[in-house]
């Protein structure tokens, strides 16, 4: 899943005929000032300014300001740009018009195993979360589009009446068109508001999750995907992602600040069992990592360097199941190079390394790891006869 920030998310909705407030995304006050000269609405409307970054709790951080005139929006932009929040620097601010309205509603489309589900409620904002039973659903099979009648029925079920039945049905229909055509996995508009000026439904705030795997057929997705965990990707994470996008197979890396057990396991499945084992033993994960699909040794080497550079680590878990086709000797070669480099840079002092692996050329790979002992590494190597996650037990007992 790939999260999309509000700017590009609203752009996609607009493309499919959904009313969105006027908005601009700026990287400096100057840019906003010049846009103010070109766009009447910026001067005329009340405005909202938000930091346009993958940050959680923006309201609490003072990174959302509402009810602004243009001057105040400029001041808010100036204040937000360059703000440092954890590892993130705010580089973009989105300025959108405030829509005077009375009623708030809810509309979402989500992916299901059979196809998708359209969700509609005649309440919105925080009210919908505490009244979840008021959300009504229309289930659709893959390949099926909702008929206008079924949408109106949904609208009525959710408690809409009068002209709003048709308006909400049409809004939901456009949401579905956007979801289906843009390979979305989740689209949520909360709130949908009835604009006082013209009685039209407008999407005020949107969550857009797209299927990153479908990027190849959407040449107009010219935006970057945002991290999904409420912070931007770190430099190290971005570097591993850059390697990942270039290679056959994959390498993954996510930092978890404050942990002392570093992970360097193989396989998307096994890596999570290793993480579970660390947590179950009371350890603190310093990262998540994974390599799989027989990646080139240099890619594993880059991953290893990042893992070795994590601060305050005491153990590195080089785990893995019995590989189908990942060459153990070759990928371990990459890890060994990474270890050597880290050691020559003065890292890995008082760090214990724990290895367990099987698969093609396992004997050669494990022998090469064992040989690191002679180079002064504190390394413990086990083969397939030691159960998968036992090295975690040993590592955390050895404290």
């Amino acid at each position, binding site marked *: *899943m790939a999260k999309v920030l509000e700017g590009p998310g609203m752009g996609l909705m607009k493309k499919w005929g959904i009313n969105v407030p006027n908005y601009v995304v700026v990287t400096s006050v100057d840019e906003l000032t010049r846009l103010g000269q070109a766009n009447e609405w910026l001067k005329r409307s009340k405005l909202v300014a938000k930091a346009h970054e993958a940050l*959680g709790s923006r309201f609490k951080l003072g990174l959302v300001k509402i009810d602004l005139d243009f001057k105040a929006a400029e001041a808010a932009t100036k204040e937000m740009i360059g703000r440092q929040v954890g590892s993130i620097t705010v580089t973009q601010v989105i300025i959108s018009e405030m829509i005077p309205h009375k009623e708030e509603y809810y509309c979402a489309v989500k*992916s299901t*195993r*059979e*196809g998708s589900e359209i969700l509609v409620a005649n309440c919105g904002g925080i009210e919908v979360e505490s009244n979840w039973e008021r959300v009504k659903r229309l289930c659709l*099979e*893959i*390949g099926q589009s909702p008929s206008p009648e079924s949408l109106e029925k949904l609208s009525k079920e959710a408690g809409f009446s009068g002209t709003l039945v048709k308006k909400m049905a049409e809004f939901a229909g456009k949401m579905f068109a956007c979801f*289906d055509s843009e*390979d979305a*996995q989740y689209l949520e508009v909360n709130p949908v508001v009835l604009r006082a000026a013209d009685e039209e439904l407008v999407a005020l705030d949107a969550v857009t999750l797209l*299927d990153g*795997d*479908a990027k*190849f*057929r959407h040449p107009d997705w010219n935006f970057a995907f945002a991290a*999904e*965990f*409420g912070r931007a990707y770190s430099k190290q994470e971005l570097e591993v992602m850059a390697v990942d996008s270039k290679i056959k197979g994959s390498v*993954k890396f*996510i930092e*978890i600040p404050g942990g002392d057990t570093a992970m360097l396991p*193989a*396989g*998307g*499945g*096994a*890596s*999570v*069992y290793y*993480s*579970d*084992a*660390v*947590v*179950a033993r009371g350890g603190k*994960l310093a990262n*998540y990592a*994974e390599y*799989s*699909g027989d990646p080139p040794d240099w890619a594993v080497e880059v991953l290893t360097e990042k893992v070795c550079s994590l601060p305050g680590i005491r153990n590195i878990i080089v785990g*893995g*199941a*019995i*590989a*189908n*086709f*990942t060459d153990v000797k070759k990928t371990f070669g990459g890890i060994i190079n990474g270890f050597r480099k880290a050691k020559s840079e003065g890292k890995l002092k008082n760090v214990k390394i724990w290895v367990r692996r*099987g*698969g*093609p*050329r396992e004997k050669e790979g494990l022998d090469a790891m064992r040989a690191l002992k002679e180079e002064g590494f504190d390394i413990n190597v086990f083969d*397939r006869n030691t*159960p*998968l*996650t*036992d090295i975690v*037990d040993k590592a955390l007992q050895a404290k």
Partner: protein
Amino acid sequence: MSILANKDTRVVIQGGQAGVNAARRMAEFCYLIKRPLNVEAFVYPPDAGKSNEIPYGSGLIAIPVYKSIAEATKHHPTLNTSLVYIGADRAMKGGMEALDDSRIKVVSMITEGVPEKDAKILGAHARKLGKVFNGPSSIGIISAGACRLGVIGGAFDNLVLSKLYREGSFGVITKSGGLSNEIIWICSQFADGITTAIGIGGDAYPGTDYVSYLEMFENDPQTKAVVIVGEMGGDLEERAAEWYGAKKRRVKLIAVVSGFCQESLPKGMKFGHAGAKEGMKGEGSARSKSDALKKAGALVPPTFGALGPAIKETYQDLLKSGQVKEPVEPATLPRLPKTVEEAMKADEVMVSPLIRTTISDDRGDEPCYDGYPASELINKGYEIPHVIGLLWDKRLISKQEAEIIKRIMMLSADHGPCVSGAYATILAACAGIGLSQSVAAGMIMIGPRFGGAVTDAGRFFKYAVDNKMSVDEFLAYMKKNHGPVPGIGHRVKSLRNPDKRVKELVGYVKSLNIKTPCLDFALEVEKITSVKKDNLILNVDGTMAAVLVDIGFPVDSLNGFFILSRTIGLIGHWVDQKRQDSRLIRLFDYLVNYAAPKRREVPPLK
């Protein structure tokens, strides 16, 4: 018995190199269980009409490549299963093509990164047709002793260690490819092994889920228990729990679920497979899945590590109740033939080498010339002439000798466009011929009359010096046995019009204070011959030859100095013509003396 893949499974593989690699692994398994190769065809339009060579035992089997599934099933009517190894952007089209063929009943997609929507469409289409669509991102399917689809099961040694050559009693269903092998191994160590193991792929919406296969396992009498390896996200494990709890089932269910670490991670942080995403309000968490499975009556060990003992316990119960018997292991198993390299490494074969070399070795990280690494030669200040010394005469020559060679090369690198070699290269270049062939055309000219006299000159001067001949004796010997003295005489140069190159080289060598018996002798010869005829002077070939013999190069290498140096010039001439985009050239009539008979009538054929 087994499910999904059995002895009657006949396979077409859609895709290129990844498909061929899978076929190789499948052939290893077929060889282990002494069955013919189950892959009958490939579909890969770029290679249609060709065939892929798949090693089977010590032989090779050619498997034809077709441009479409329809064509493949027409030629191979027994095909019933397709493996899709096509890139993510074209995978759906390929999968649809296979599903729509009436003969194909099972389609397993190995491709990773397939859009969710495409996977759903493929799954729905297969359900509508009553077929199986497995994957995407599936590692494959393996039925012990019967059939392997894809690389699942790993290397040959692992197939044997995991006892995949014969049936056990445990079914396996996993999302993770790597863990499928781990579970197969555990089943073989803690119990009697597997019946069938299936990788359903780690995507959010796989075409077939645990329930699809649990149902099949329930109907397979050989399968007594099923191990499922789940992970957080989605609802596949909950559905499996629901199925298991719905009524009394014949098979025992053992399950583990990953993702408990999620509970202590920063909010929103998720990892693992694409499908491993926890929903809102804790649905799809590892805990809720594991609780649901326990509640349904499945055996759910607390950690992955406890899975082995849990499987063992189940197996012991099955043994006690007489539902399974201890397996009988075959007395012997086929061994995968070793490659020559592997066998040599294990000291099992001796090979008589085809060629022998004494000058260089490229097997390390860089070439060694006569044992010296090229980079070390560079870093210690050695130059091209030293490399020549090492490769032509297997010795590290002195700085002074290197300087002589360098000068020889500089003097003979080129001699204008009119000489035979350069002219031939230019002629070829103008005819549009490539660099190597054009240079070769020039090279062909090097012989007794042009540039190729160095070796012979060296040989005869050396013969005279070795045998302490006087100049007169030498000239008489040459006249009697060989004819003109090689290295003596020039087409245009003469005593009055001396060759500056010879003067230069002789002057330099003479200034070095080294012993030059051959050169001295050659100059004595010139004194006599040039009196007889003005142009019978020591030419550049002869000078080079004498000097090179004096500094110890073997006679047979001498022509090489001219060939090497002149190559510089020939390449220059080719590039020069190319740069000018020269046109094809042809001799003019007036440059030919037409001495053939005048035109006449052809007599009638007798």
